[in-house]
């Protein structure tokens, strides 16, 4: 079936570096994408979202890029800090669902070394 997946299950970076977390999706009907951050023992926290009519959106230290041609989503974190260490999930919303059903990827573990 169609699903959202991640290229890399783990990512280790040094403090101050930029991080890039990737996500591939296979459903061309998806029109909304979200990135979540989940720290150990806590619920996922919304980071940033993007609609399919955009290819880039920026937040505070984070940027999401959407490439619909190759069905690829990425999260860029600038000047990564130890507090950014967490599991990052991408999620896609399938167009036409009445209740905003999200399909989640398996997650990428980001570890930031001081």
């Amino acid at each position, binding site marked *: 079936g169609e699903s959202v997946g991640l290229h890399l299950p783990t990512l280790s970076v040094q403090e101050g570096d930029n991080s890039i977390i990737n996500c591939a999706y296979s459903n061309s009907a998806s029109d*909304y994408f*979200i990135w979540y951050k989940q720290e150990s*023992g806590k*619920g996922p*926290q919304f980071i940033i979202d993007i609609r399919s009519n955009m290819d880039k959106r920026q937040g505070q230290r984070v940027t999401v890029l959407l490439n619909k041609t190759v069905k690829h989503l990425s999260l860029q974190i600038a000047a990564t800090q130890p507090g950014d260490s967490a599991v990052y999930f991408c999620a896609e919303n399938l167009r036409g669902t*009445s209740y905003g059903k999200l399909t*989640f990827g398996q*997650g990428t573990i980001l570890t930031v070394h001081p």
Partner: protein
Amino acid sequence: SQTIHQWPATLVQPVGSPLSLECTVEGTSNPNLYWYRQAAGRGLQLLFYSVGIGQISSEVPQNLSASRPQDRQFILSSKKLLLSDSGFYLCAWSGLADTQYFGPGTRLTVL
């Protein structure tokens, strides 16, 4: 602003015992509500969703049930827990937009 609460935060229950997890949302009306389960080191599996009071849809067959007795209250239940019911249970809500916001979760251990 909207907030979402879950309790208890942690729970240890014997096999065969009943379960009741509660989720409440503040600061919004008529939210869509969701229950997810997350196994250790895994992604999120949608269990139930609700678009209104008394309206429950199940995503996967299982030993659990859900109810929505009030607009902003969502309850996850079981009559007899199984070992395989252990996990991290997350409640989420969404409004007119598609973004889902999650609660702090309940860690359930079935022994």
